[in-house]
């Protein structure tokens, strides 16, 4: 099991660099400065979408504090709440907000709710093979393709005229059910309808992209950070007949790209207390210019200074910008 996931991570790391787009980090964000007396070990368990990003952050952090040990595990967002509750992890990266039931069980144990930090912006992309003639889709079409709300579809059904494609069924790839991406896509793209049983569940984001790269008639969804040269992210419109938007930073910030979302890191923070220096420094680093440049390096979009301010306040950290 572990070995397999490790290999997924490796594949992901290789592909991530290529997808980086040039997005400017908000200049209001402070530069991170190393402080004294930080040591110990932390563990992060959760999202696979955020796995690379957490790894990069951890590397940066270890450069600043060589005595710190950080372990990162990314099997899916749904693994984060149990790990936070059981105290196995100090950071719970998630690509969807926590469910009510998950917050309930956290609150049952600690008496307060977990704290949600919005650490990056992602545009969830719908991928096709690079040779695929499709360039844009509406969310209504996406819903019919992936959910039980529509029939099994061929490429002809979504408007491809090329006879080599028209009669071929769309081969569907998606994430496993532990994934926050799976949950987010179901809620926002499929209008909460169930996935078709023929959607092939892949254990990682890069596996979905890889499947789209090798299967010519494939369509899959995954975070934009995992895009490679062999796949194409189609433009998405909110409804049939409306303007479609590319998965870009500007469109995500503006909210017009319908599948833009925050990527979260959840922590166990007791309200009204000061956080231990190790976690505090890590959070500060995430919301610093360096931390957000790492976000850009991984292919996601940085959060703005406003959001950084709000979230630092949530955990009682000083905001001096």
């Amino acid at each position, binding site marked *: 099991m572990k070995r397999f996931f490790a290999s997924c991570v490796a594949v992901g790391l290789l592909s991530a660099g290529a997808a980086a787009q040039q997005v400017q980090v908000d200049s209001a964000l402070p530069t991170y400065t190393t402080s004294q007396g930080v040591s110990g070990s932390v563990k992060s368990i959760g999202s696979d979408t955020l796995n690379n990003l957490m790894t990069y952050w951890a590397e940066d952090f270890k450069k600043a504090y060589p005595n710190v040990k950080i372990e990162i595990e990314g099997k899916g967002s749904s693994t984060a709440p149990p790990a936070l509750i059981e105290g196995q992890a100090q950071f719970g990266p998630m690509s969807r907000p926590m469910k009510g039931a998950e917050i309930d069980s956290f609150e049952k144990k600690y008496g307060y709710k977990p704290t949600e930090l919005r650490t990056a912006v992602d545009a969830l992309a719908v991928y096709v093979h690079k040779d695929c003639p499709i360039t844009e889709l509406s969310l209504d079409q996406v819903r019919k393709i992936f959910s039980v709300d529509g029939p099994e579809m061929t490429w002809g059904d979504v408007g491809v005229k090329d006879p080599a494609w028209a009669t071929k069924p769309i081969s569907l790839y998606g994430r496993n*059910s532990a994934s926050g991406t799976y949950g987010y896509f179901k809620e926002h793209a499929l209008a909460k309808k169930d996935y078709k049983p023929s959607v*092939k569940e892949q254990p990682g984001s890069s596996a979905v992209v890889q499947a789209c790269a090798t299967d010519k008639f494939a369509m899959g969804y995954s975070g934009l950070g995992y895009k490679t040269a062999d796949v194409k992210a189609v433009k998405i419109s909110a409804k049939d007949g409306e303007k479609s938007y590319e998965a870009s930073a500007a469109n995500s910030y503006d909210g017009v790209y319908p599948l833009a979302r925050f990527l979260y890191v959840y922590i166990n923070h007791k309200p009204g207390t000061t956080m231990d220096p190790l976690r505090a420094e890590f959070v500060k680093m995430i919301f610093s210019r360096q931390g957000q440049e790492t976000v850009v390096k991984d292919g996601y979009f940085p959060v703005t200074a406003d959001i950084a301010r709000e979230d630092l306040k949530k955990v009682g950290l000083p905001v001096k910008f």
Partner: protein
Amino acid sequence: MVENVEQPGPRPLPPSDLARAARKRGTLRRVRLADRAAALTITIGGLSVIVAVLGMLVFLASEVVPLFYRGDATQRLSGQAEISGNVLFGMTDEYLGLATVVLDGGDAATIELSTGKVLNRVPLVPEGAELSAWSFSRGDGAFAFGYADGRVQTGTLGYAASFLTADERSDAVNALAAGGRLAQGRGYVERVQLDQFRLVEPNIVVGDPVSIESGTGPIVAMDYRLSSASQWLVATREDGTAVFNLVRVTTPLGGGKPRMRFSSYPFTLALPDGRSAPDWTFLTGDGSNVLMLWKDGLVQRYAVLRDDEGEYTAAAADSTSMTSRGGGGPVKVVSASMILGSKTLVAGLDDGRTIGLFVARDEAAYTPDRRKMVIAHEHDLALAGSGPVVELGIGQRDRSYAAADEKGHLFVRNMTSGKVIVDLDEASSSPTTFLDIAPKNDGLMAMFADGSYTVWDMDPKHSEASWGALFGRVWYEGAAEPEYVYQSSSGDDAAEPKLSITPLIFGTLKATLYAMLFAVPLAVLAAIYTSEMLHPTVRNRVKPVIEAMASLPSVVLGFIAAMVIAPLARDWIDTILASFVVVPFTVLIAAHAWQMLPVRLTSRLRSFQHMALVAAAVGVGFLVAVPIGGAAERLLFRPSDGDVLVLAGSYEPVPDELKPAWVANRANLDDQLSRRLREQGLYFRDGRVVRPAGSLSDPAVQAVVKANKLDRADFRLWLDGVIGSPFPGWMILMIPPAACIAFYSKSRFIEPLVHRVQTLRFGFPAAAAEMAMLIVIGLGSLGVAAGMAAILSALGADARDLFFGPFNQRNTLVVGIIMGFAVIPIIYTISEDALSSVSPALRSASLGAGATRWQTAIRVVMPVAASGIFSAIMIGLGRAAGETMIVLMATGNTPSMDWSMFSGFRTLSANIATELPEAPVGGTHYRVLFLCGLVLFAMTAVVNTAAELIRQRFRKRAAGL
């Protein structure tokens, strides 16, 4: 596994040794002691293995059994609220300290549950307005009021929780014990832990009233729903005019406030004949349906449609009626609400039943959106003699709802599974006016007309799980009929978990079947070959090599299957299928050719060289399979002229009278239905039934056909059901049984005839005759297969419904082959051991009597070693059933239920592996995964027990030898 058949008996000691033996008694006792110690150790070891296995079973069962428990409720408190008047709606806070209720005058009163005091009372209805309709959606607290003057007003009800800092706390608050609560301001403070004080206060937001311009008369029914990206409001006026308001919310992730875009679509909803305005109006959660409900049980649905300009309209779709117990008679609806997720409408009837109704997809339905309403669930109040279901409360964590009659009977049930969670009889003198399930699903509150109320702590346990929900077909929201579905989790609370593990059991059986079909013949025949045909020195080298295959970790095999074999299989599928027939036949041809060679040549060959020749024959088989596979594809899977014309776009719509009635209003046909249509020479294109038009000789058509090679035979297109007839599929499937029939008739009928001819009994002529016979029966079995295929196709059966289906790159064939490789070493080794341990005397006797090696192996050695071979197969079966990583990586883990070799599946073991990390300990999902484990355990236990029983019978038969 296999015991020695011959046990050497004790040798009688020569008389002269007797004295010495007597002197050595001491040693013998030591031996006896050691013997006893060993026996004891082995017994203890064996027993502890049994205990460990039983312990595992008990542990699994103890994790699973709570799934079937009912929930329970204990009364926490009861009190008397300082309010009067009827309660319209309301909600408790998530820690069950407050209840905010909206009274029929339009005031919102927040009651402290421990004392019954009203802490806060705010009027929501503006001065002078007369409230004529309201709606409340429990999940998001969204409410809407409609007034007699045609105005509407929306707002939200909720609570805000915050933690108090040291400065904000009064002395009285500081004096609270842990868990203690104290009213403060509009809410209360609770000391959660020693240093934590939580303040909960009501948070009521209400907007300004807005006039509705169209229609006349008061607002009579309305509904208001929220989602993350949209808000919908539908309001019906007395004259039947309904106004549909839509607010689309765009949330910029770059910071800043959400942008709202408001649009209003007035439309008149055609009320059913003779009906006045409805008693209830509901919107489904995605804003795509308006449901109107009348007290006599009639439900009329309007589909909200979006036209090309993006404007919304509503069209009357379908209607249905709730019927009395046993059907036919009149009913009276007394309460109605929407279950969590706003897809299922729950109606409480005056005969003590509740009805669950939702909109389902039905491609054939003559409605504008090809959907129809279905009454999927009907629950009887748990207690006999219950009165009308006057109040309903909706759970916020799952599909549960609470219902109460006027006498104070109340129960909580899960809508989907029908499981009774709580069943209470709170005999009260006044009818229930308000019923609420606490937001965390951990409490229940009922308020009665006299202002008295009771609060229970509730533990719903596992409301989604019941025998029916776990193993049977369940009628899930949005489905046209009950079905087996496994889709365990999702990103939001409103999702309905679907936990039928039948598709997983099916997947496990399918994986095992395909793996065994591939592995058993190969492994057993290889074992026979190495033990019976090869020289012992060669055998001693071959066997470890095959056993080394077992050391390949299955995750590596899975990786190879997913990354290498699957794409190869996609490109070489014709060759792979052809090689299943061609390779064995080539080996047989080679074997017969071998017989025709002069003995002085063949007898000179060493064992290694012999084996190399066999390998060469297999290799040649694969090489031959390439052209044969291609030829078979070109011959069998060719599109008909009609197929080509339609593919090239040369077709015309079919007049309605020729259109089969079953097509009805469908805009899409699945594979099976479109094949059914094609059998009549008709096709389905662009949402209608068409037939080929024009001719292939038309230059324009020819150009398209040429450019895209549309007349090319294509196996994948045939699998997808786009071209061709059922015949070739059956032909392929029938080759193995046809070959069996042909070989049987050869040995039964043809051989005796041939052997009558004296010259054909010995030497080269005999070998040549055998070869001729082989070729004849080879061709013969093709003929028989074609015949059988023709019959089956004529009967209307299509193999594409059964073992073939649309091609998926991650498919069962690939997994079967790779998993076959994983189990071959184990089956091979144990079978080989079994065969080798058969007494050489039997073999010598058989060979000496003139039997060939093959005859000896099959008729003498095999029956004796049968029990061992059987064990080998069963152990392989157990391994295949429990195999996880190959399946996890090489299939798409799609929990579908079909036997097609080109589709994926999900097994119990892969399901446990993927989902266990995400399942919270002790939750329903967690226990269902343990149930998967228990079922897998039971499956292997049954197989192994059956295998052991059969093996012992075999052994008894062989014991005499």
